[in-house]
């Protein structure tokens, strides 16, 4: 088993190094193939580990080597394969495999093809470190690793110039990459503080040792650690108010959006909360947990509302990711950790599928993402249409697809906890989710053809790409059917992840499900009536409505990015300018320069001594000797 763990962990790393060898040379197709195969191997290893865990229930824990050993401080490179991490490993490696194969087709014409695969595999490696580590420091290394890879990949097309915010809300790939990185850095500070608090009070960074000591810690410590760690999770999982980077990160290539900014990396925050579930289920941090649930619900609603009016295909999917992350946090905050993890896995499958389908559309439309320029693409791109419809049905939460089971369970949890306001919001959001995801499907694949007039000639993606996407499509359909067995699987971890609905809720479960379905269907029907029809009733752009207050508010993301620019970025720039011209140039540089100038001037003045005349030198020597004698005499007299 131990070897399988190493294979799962290091196969992507080898793939990354291999691709990096060719990083600077021209496109070589085998680089992509080798990287994909290595990720596939990692997936097979992960799946075998998962199967083994399912059958025997033995948690694999290994210590690869000592890492830091300083005084009392000991950290090892250790890995743990338990029910939580194996779920993540399987999901990550599976989605990565599909995305790698997809990228061979998608990045076909890109001259930095090899570099792309190097980054992508490096990301998978970092993610594996993140989920498999058995201590907080290893998690943090993986956490930063995925951050760096995300930065590299969002800014992959760094040569694109900056645009005005009105033309392109994400300005440019390099701008978006920096935004993502800096925002995550702010949150990571919180996470680091959380880790420090835990280490300070427990003397260890190992999960099991830390969690074993939790009952002996004071309430304030527990609260501080829980809040600080959650701030880290908020950054990585793009929760309000650190959410703006996620939609801007759509500047990266679509496979990146699918893998990193939908399926895996952004779920790291949820993973952290689930991993630290013994901490978050302590009674002392009840308030924090409830805040997590409330914030999650708020973000679910908030992001869904912005998706209602968005025209950019990828940004809609990004909003839906935000919204679904909100659902996951709602479940985790309410204590239903396993439901959150299950939704995470199901969401990874259908969201990656949705993104890859979006990538196909983008590829076909020559990087055009404006839904208003599409319509009736279904006759050109049948395979993509089917995939995206499937994924959208799953996202909208209709039975029997994956999204229904997991999302319904989350909504039911909110009901079960008697947090009826959260429940109402989540149900409403489910309806909005159905509306915007089908608005996007109908605008792009149904209705009147709007692209021919604009001179687009869309074509379907390569066959092998469509075939590679099929595992995701299958999983988007069937994942939900295994919810019961997954529950039994993950319950073996212990009491802290177990969550059962009360008898009362159980009794009402069917009605609650029906309410959700009703909202979802209503959303879809409205979207259909508005956007899918052809002929006389076809959708037409309503310029007048686009000037309305709410439309503009949503379109401008509630002016939050504007607010950040005006009240954070600009003052910060001004302050930096002051510090640069006044403090750095005048004081810091001034001091250093004047020291240098003093010596330079002294040298310049005294160099006339160097006449080359021995007699002069002897005179100076005598002066020096007299001086020394005087000093000696004076000091002797004083001493």
């Amino acid at each position, binding site marked *: 088993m131990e070897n399988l763990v190493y294979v799962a962990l290091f196969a992507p790393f080898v793939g990354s190094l291999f691709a990096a060898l060719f990083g600077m040379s021209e496109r070589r197709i085998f680089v992509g193939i080798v990287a994909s195969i290595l990720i596939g191997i990692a997936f097979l290893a992960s799946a075998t580990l998962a199967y083994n865990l399912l059958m025997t229930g033995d948690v694999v824990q290994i210590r690869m080597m000592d890492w830091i050993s300083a005084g009392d401080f000991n950290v090892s490179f250790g890995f743990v394969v338990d029910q939580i991490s194996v779920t993540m490993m399987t999901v990550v490696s599976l989605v990565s495999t599909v995305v790698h194969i997809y990228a061979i087709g998608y990045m076909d014409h890109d001259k930095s093809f090899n570099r792309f695969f190097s980054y992508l595999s490096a990301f998978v490696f970092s993610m594996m470190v993140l989920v498999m580590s058995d201590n907080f420091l290893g998690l943090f290394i993986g956490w930063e690793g995925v951050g760096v890879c995300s930065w590299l990949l969002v800014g992959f097309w760094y040569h694109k110039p900056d645009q005005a915010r009105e033309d392109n809300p994400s300005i440019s790939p390099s701008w978006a990459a920096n935004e993502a990185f800096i925002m995550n850095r702010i949150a990571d500070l919180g996470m680091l503080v959380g880790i420090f608090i835990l280490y300070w009070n427990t003397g260890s960074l190992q999960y099991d040792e830390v969690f074993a000591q939790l009952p002996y810690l004071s309430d304030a410590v527990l609260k501080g650690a829980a809040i600080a760690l959650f701030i880290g999770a908020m950054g990585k999982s793009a929760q309000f108010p650190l959410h703006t980077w996620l939609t801007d990160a759509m500047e990266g290539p679509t496979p990146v959006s699918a893998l990193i900014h939908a399926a895996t990396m952004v779920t790291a925050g949820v993973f952290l909360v689930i991993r630290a579930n013994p901490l978050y289920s302590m009674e002392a941090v009840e308030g924090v947990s409830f805040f997590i649930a409330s914030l999650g619900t708020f973000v679910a609603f908030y992001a869904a509302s912005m998706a209602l009016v968005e025209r950019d295909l990828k940004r809609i999917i990004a909003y839906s990711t935000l919204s679904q992350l909100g659902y996951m946090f709602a479940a985790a905050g309410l204590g239903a950790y396993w439901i959150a993890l299950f939704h995470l896995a199901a969401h990874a499958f259908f969201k990656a599928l949705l993104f890859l389908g979006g990538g196909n559309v983008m590829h076909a439309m020559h990087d055009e993402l404006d839904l208003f320029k599409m319509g009736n693409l279904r006759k050109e791109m049948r395979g993509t249409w089917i995939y995206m419809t499937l994924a959208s049905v799953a996202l909208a939460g209709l039975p029997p697809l994956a999204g229904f089971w997991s999302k319904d369970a989350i909504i039911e949890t909110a009901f079960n906890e008697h947090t009826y306001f959260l429940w109402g919001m989540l149900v409403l959001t489910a309806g909005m989710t159905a509306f915007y995801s089908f608005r996007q499907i109908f605008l792009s694949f149904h209705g009147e053809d709007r692209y021919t007039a604009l001179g687009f000639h869309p074509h379907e993606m390569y066959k092998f790409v469509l075939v590679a996407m099929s595992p995701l499509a299958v999983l988007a359909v069937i994942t939900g059917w295994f919810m019961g067995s997954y529950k039994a699987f993950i319950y073996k971890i212990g009491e802290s992840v177990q969550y059962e609905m009360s008898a009362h809720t159980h009794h009402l479960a069917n009605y609650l499900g029906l309410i959700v379905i009703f909202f979802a269907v209503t959303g879809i029907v409205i979207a259909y009536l508005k956007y899918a029809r052809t002929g006389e009733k076809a959708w037409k752009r309503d310029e007048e409505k686009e000037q309305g207050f709410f439309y503009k508010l949503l379109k401008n993301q509630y002016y939050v990015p504007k607010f950040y620019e005006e009240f954070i970025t600009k003052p910060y720039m001004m302050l930096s300018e002051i510090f640069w011209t006044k403090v750095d140039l005048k004081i810091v540089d001034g001091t250093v320069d004047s020291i240098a100038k003093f010596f330079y001037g002294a040298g310049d003045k005294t*160099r*006339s*001594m*160097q*006449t*080359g*005349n*021995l*007699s002069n030198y*002897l*005179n100076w020597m*005598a002066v020096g000797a007299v001086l020394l004698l005087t000093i000696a005499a004076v000091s002797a007299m004083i001493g």
Partner: protein
Amino acid sequence: MIGLSHYLVISAILFSIGLVGVLRRRNLLMLFFATEVMLNAVNIAFAAISHYYNDLTGQMFAFFIIAVAASEVAVGLGILIVLYKKHGSLDLDDLASMRG
């Protein structure tokens, strides 16, 4: 009665004469002479103090200095001859070639 202080005064006067010679003379040969005067001034002081304390170490040291001075003059004069052959002069103002 001639005491220690007389010797030391002589020694100091000789040393000062030598020092002035080193500082004021321009001819290298004269510099050498001046240096010898200074060395011998020190020798006188050594011998006088040695006698005063009844300790022979000072006088031995004077012998060492005489020996070292002799060999130094031998080497120095050799260099002077080479310099003179090369430049045709031993005047320090003519020999200044390394101006800073």
